[in-house]
């Protein structure tokens, strides 16, 4: 088993930060229109930091693993750092890249997180 697959399965079976965020200040929902992945990301921004991030998803293993890793990575970090996260950084966290047809499964949680941060009432900048 590749490292990528091992990471994906681990986070798919035991996703971190799955569920609603109490006192969320921002939220966004996103979908991959053809494969049907659907995800909602919620954040609670406190000052300049992401105090909490969570997600709810009816999505594939890659998408859920990416959301799990992503929310783990941004929790407690500065909003500016979360906004600067790239798909490449997520690939690194996943210890590999998905096949070409599945790259949008990684991009979806990131895009949804960025929109959630933009809608956050506690967002700065």
């Amino acid at each position: 088993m590749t490292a990528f697959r091992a990471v994906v399965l681990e986070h798919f079976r035991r996703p971190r930060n799955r569920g609603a965020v109490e006192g969320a200040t921002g939220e966004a929902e996103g979908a991959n229109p053809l494969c049907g992945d659907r995800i909602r990301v919620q954040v609670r921004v406190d000052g300049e930091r992401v105090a909490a991030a969570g997600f709810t998803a009816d999505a594939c293993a890659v998408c859920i693993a990416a959301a799990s890793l992503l929310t783990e990575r941004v929790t407690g970090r500065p909003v500016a750092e979360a906004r600067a996260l790239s798909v490449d950084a997520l690939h690194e966290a996943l210890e590999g890249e998905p096949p070409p047809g599945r790259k949008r499964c990684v991009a979806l949680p990131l895009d949804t997180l960025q929109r959630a941060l933009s809608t956050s009432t506690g967002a700065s900048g």
Partner: protein
Amino acid sequence: MNGLLHTVGTDLEKEKAVVVATLVAATGSSSKKVGARMYVGASGRILGGVTIGGCVDAQVVEASDALVAEGGRKLLSISLDDDEAWEIGLTCGGTVEVLIERAVPSDPNDPVVRSHREAAERLAAGEPAELTTALGDGRTFVDHIAPPTTLLIVGAGQIAMSLTRLARELEMRTVVIDGRERYATRERFPDADEVRVGMPSEIVASYSLAKGTAVILVAHDYKYELPVLRNLIRSDVGYLGMLGSRKRGAAVRALLRDEGFSDEELARVRTPIGLDIGGKAPAEVALSILAEVVAVRSGKAT
């Protein structure tokens, strides 16, 4: 023929008068359940039936034709000898009693129209309804009508399209659910009562997950199956089926078992879905699924 209640407010409104015929009693082995209805319009239009067909319905139509002109109500008692009984499905003869009542669909205060509309409204809201009618001889006929089965269909593919078409004929309500806007469209599902786009597990959970609800997973995609099943396995839905082979079903159960669901709970998920009628085409699969839903509802499938 509970669904014909709805026609009181639609097609039959075009009629000046309608006779509502209700099977209120049957001895012997009736081919239809007590409560079956037939509507005979002043124009000659006939909807429904109080038996499977043949002599009894013909006699009721004849009596209704007279009543639609004269007005009022009448309790018909129709005896059947064995030959006739065989012809129409009453295998051991007997007697049927049919109440015929004249109603004016355009009159909202007509007592028959009003009671049917009230019942239709309750059924449309997913609640049981009751029609109470004095038979005129000291007896009262009380018809307890269960709400129609609601099918929550997850996955807006070809099998779902066939399901909505066939379910309409079976007088079942259908809700098609998918996360994909291009699939879950009104154009693809003209016969569905509702078409919903969003997070399938959340949409499913927003409905009454009671015995009268059947959940049919035909997405054939674990991304919807797992979250929907997590929300449903411990609910009271009357039917829970998932498209897929035994092997695939076992894999999904194994994943959910790891999350703490018991074997007994997981056994509720019917996979492979549907009765085995040997068909592979989408409409054939849909037919087998609906056959199983009916069989479970009527206690003929374990």
